């Protein structure tokens, strides 16, 4: 393979904002525009010089069809810059980066704006198909009699709304919601409620520490709403939580005997992360400073009812392809869909049986050193706007690697529907 090098030269994300029952002010496009605007403003090239815009988004609003195009036009990139939206559930943001990386690696593009965005609080509530059929019948009726008959076909059940957010978080084939798949993997690897809560607490504490140390502000652009409020931090972060508080929460998916609670799951949030990718040529032509390099990605499929184990397989493939061992990876961002699922991945990597039965390996590849994993917290504290998370973890991984001396890193996510995705990156240390 003689692929060209692909660099990330800049990137920002919005603070991730919790969904509090009603829609937040920002749409998916609003969030992506807010994140990308400063990136374009401080770039030495004009927005029109971008070759392509690729954005991951799982549930765009009904008026945001091909949201990537809307974002491009709203950013002032002009009508000539093409844009498309990608959907791979929880890894949509990573998929966008993967597409952009491939385009540049193949020499087909030099500057690509890529990332992910999601306004989960705005996921539409739809009429069901029976209602749609009834409406169509009424509208089609040609005469009063036919119309009366059509109207008479109305049933109260037609009013039952379809919550696209809940549907999106439920596997369409095995009919389990994502939380239940986490319960399954927790059970399989014997991960206790206390272990999950302890992991979740750590996520909040690590994020709080990162904010305290001023490590987040170069990654986050504050959001301003029309009512004069400003959001500077992920508002799902709980600095005051502790084991007692977490222990009091009731399981939300397997309500009676389960262990997965809202406290040890990722939060339903709105947010966007947008990165600027550049070819070697572009870096030289515009004198760009490089944040890091995207080396490649791997995807893997697993049992949909155990979708949380996706990263186990994707990372295994990635390591194999690049002939690396877990020790070579200086930092890993493993998206915290659920604390149980992160811990299950670690257990699976450690397990000789899993290595043998599921990965076809003689020896396990071993877990990642917890000191290298999600060092500034993860989705449990930050939130998981599904389309954006993949882009966020790559962006954060690069910045985190640079702060800690550089080297190789992996960003990986489990994907609803039973997949895993993982991307290998490299960054130089800050002083270097």
């Amino acid at each position: 393979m003689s692929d060209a090098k692909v660099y990330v030269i800049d990137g920002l994300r919005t603070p991730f904002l919790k969904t509090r029952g009603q829609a937040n002010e920002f749409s998916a496009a609003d969030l992506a525009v807010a994140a990308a605007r400063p990136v374009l403003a401080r770039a030495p090239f004009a927005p029109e010089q971008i070759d392509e815009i690729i954005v991951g988004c799982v549930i765009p609003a009904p008026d945001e069809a091909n949201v990537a195009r809307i974002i491009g036009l709203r950013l002032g990139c002009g009508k000539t810059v093409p844009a498309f939206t990608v959907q791979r559930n929880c890894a949509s943001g990573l998929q966008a980066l993967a597409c952009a990386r491939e385009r540049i690696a193949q020499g087909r593009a030099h500057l690509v704006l890529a990332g992910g965005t999601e306004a989960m609080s705005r996921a539409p509530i739809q009429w069901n198909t029976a209602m749609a059929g009834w409406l169509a019948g009424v509208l089609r009726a040609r005469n009063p009699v036919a119309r009366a008959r059509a109207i008479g076909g109305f049933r109260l059940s037609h009013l039952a709304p379809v919550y696209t957010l809940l549907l999106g978080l439920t596997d369409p084939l095995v009919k389990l919601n994502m939380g239940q798949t986490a319960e399954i993997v927790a059970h399989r690897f014997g991960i206790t409620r206390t272990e999950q809560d302890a992991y979740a607490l750590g996520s909040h504490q690590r994020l709080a520490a990162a904010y305290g140390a001023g490590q987040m502000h170069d990654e986050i652009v504050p959001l301003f709403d029309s009512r004069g409020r400003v959001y500077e931090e992920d508002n799902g972060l709980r600095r005051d939580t502790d084991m007692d508080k977490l222990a009091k929460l009731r399981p939300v998916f397997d309500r009676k005997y389960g262990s997965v609670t809202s406290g040890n799951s990722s939060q339903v949030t709105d947010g966007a992360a947008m990165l600027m990718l550049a070819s070697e040529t572009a870096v030289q032509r515009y004198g760009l400073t490089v944040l890091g390099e995207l080396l490649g990605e791997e995807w893997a499929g697993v049992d949909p009812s155990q979708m949380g184990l996706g990263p186990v397989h994707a990372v295994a493939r990635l390591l194999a392809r690049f002939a690396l061992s877990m020790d070579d990876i200086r930092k890993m961002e493993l998206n915290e869909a659920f604390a149980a699922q992160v811990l299950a991945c670690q257990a699976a990597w450690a397990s000789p049986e899993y290595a043998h039965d599921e990965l076809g390996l003689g020896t396990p590849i071993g877990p990642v050193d917890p000191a290298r994993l999600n060092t500034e917290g993860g989705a449990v504290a930050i939130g998981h706007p599904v389309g954006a998370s993949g882009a966020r973890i790559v962006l954060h991984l690069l910045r985190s690697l640079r702060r800690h001396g550089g080297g190789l890193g992996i960003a990986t996510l489990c994907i609803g529907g039973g997949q895993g995705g993982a991307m290998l990156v490299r960054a130089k240390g800050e002083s270097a």
Partner: protein
Amino acid sequence: MNMDIDAANWRIEEADETIVLTLDVVGQRANALSSVVLEEFDRILGQIEVRPLHGLVIRSAKVNSFIVGADVNEFQKISDSVQATALARAGQTVFNRLAGLPFPSVALIHGNCLGGGLELALACTYRVAREDDATRLGLPEVRLGIHPGFAGSVRLPPLIGDLAALDLILTGRAVSSRQALALGLVDEIVPDRHLMHAAHAFIARHPRPRRAAWWKRTPSWSMVRKPVTRLLQRQLRKKANPDHYPAPYRALDLWRRNASQDEEALSLGELMVGRTSRNLVSMFLLGEELKRHGRRHPHDVAHLHVIGAGTMGADIAIWAAFKGFRVSLQDPQMEALARAVKKAHGFYKKKLKKPVAIQDAMDRLMPDTNGDGLHRADLVIEAIVEKADAKCELLRSVESMVRPDTLLATNTSSIPLEILGEALRDPSRLVGLHFFNPVAQMQLVEIVRGKQTSESSLERARAFTVAIERLPLDVRSSPGFLVNRVLMPYLIEAMTLAQEGIAIEEIDQAAMHFGMPMGPVLLADTVGLDICLSVAEMLSGPLGIAVPERLREAVARGDLGKKSGRGFYSYDKSGKPRRRAAHGHSDVPVTERLILRMLNEAAACLREGVVSDPDAVDVGMVYGTGFAPYLGGPMRYAEALGEVGIASSLQRLAQEYGSRFAPDEAWGRTDLFARRAALRG
């Protein structure tokens, strides 16, 4: 058939028995109805009215407008009311000819259709307008101190109803094509691509011309006419003093009398030669001249970066984004940016209404905590705290980060550009862009020239100013420039009067009576007493102004004016001043003291060459402070009073109230008051 008509400004095409008449006034950006254009139009109508045609279509060849009105330049050449009335009669006759054609006529309207332009359209059988925001129709005559004179006031009420017609005539406001359709002012609105189709369809169908519904004409019934007039008069009085601005009252009177076209023309003739109209017209033309000056060079700004999200910085950024520029607004303080974003949203919502337009404007305005926008900026305007050291330090760092061709500007109201320029490697790129508060209302921007400012920087600054639809006025860098310097003695005198025990209500009343848009005490409170104090202190040295103790005390107490809820006035929760009923008048010459201090300072500015001529003083004070527009600005007012008379009045005041009234030596030099011949018409 070939029509052989000598009409340089009209293009005549004929197909299928229909004439398409396209107005394209030679050498002008927009079409105005000069007497030559009207004569040509008359000749054309004379030729076609005798022919068996299907119809006539009238349109404009200009990109942005249909017809913007009568030719205002010609107003200045009129010397007496008989002549003015004759001009109106001539226009009416042509339009009557148009209205009397034996076949239907259609006005195809795009862009501005104002004044005489709308009156022409009203004389057509049908009006079809382009469906967009740029198409605007109105009768703005009252803004020039007159009312419609080409039969607009006669034709409009039967078409759209009396109240709607009076609303347009009395306020001078323009409406969009969508609103015009709702009013019945136009028959149809269509996208650009269908304008001609619609015109031909109207001619082919020839439906009955539109009339207002009967109930919209009820105010014209003789029983109700009088009470309606009284009601409208009362509303007018809240907006304009009839002694200063007679035109709307005259227009209302025409309606009350159910006046004929002759009476309209007669009334117009009288107004046109009156002081108010003369002065408003000259103000308008001076404004147009400033725009022309700025347009001499195309503007080269795509991205504006504003530093400092205080009132001025935020308002400049909000305005520029509103006018289509990409803007980054930098401030380290999140709360300041949050306030600015909130304000922007409120402003765009009010002005733009449509969600997509609001979103576009909001997208163009980027709050910027780190100065990311500096890298792209073509123009940087700093509007941070009014301290020379801070500004110098900022400008120095800005210069190191921006492109070498980025224009740097300061919104300082008091610091000499020469001092700020010292911070720069290249001081020739620094120019003053001094906006006035509130930016959305005050049209003036002082373009401040420092000793080292280059001509090209000034050109770029002027061009940008015109591009955001503000008026660029050249001033020399000297303390207070023009507007603040002339205003300050007036504000100080108001405070001195208050200190002497005159009720602040009486002081403000006197100024309002004179024709100022707001009394000086209330103005000081609105601007902020802290800002007044800092400007006063800064000017006190060079201009020898004594800062009133009462101002210092108020600021020391924390009474900063409207923003703190208390200044000279105290304010209720909605921000309205609590006024005491004005009691008996004192025998102090309040108005004279207030206004003469201003005139005296204006004369000093002329003498020192802060601005080039008296017109510049007038345009600056009228557009920058709202100085009684009907008087045409301080210098035109001084001219009316006579320079000698002013000097002796000042002398008298100096004896009684102190040397601050000593007449400036400028009053003895008639050469300073000479106006440019070009503008005297």
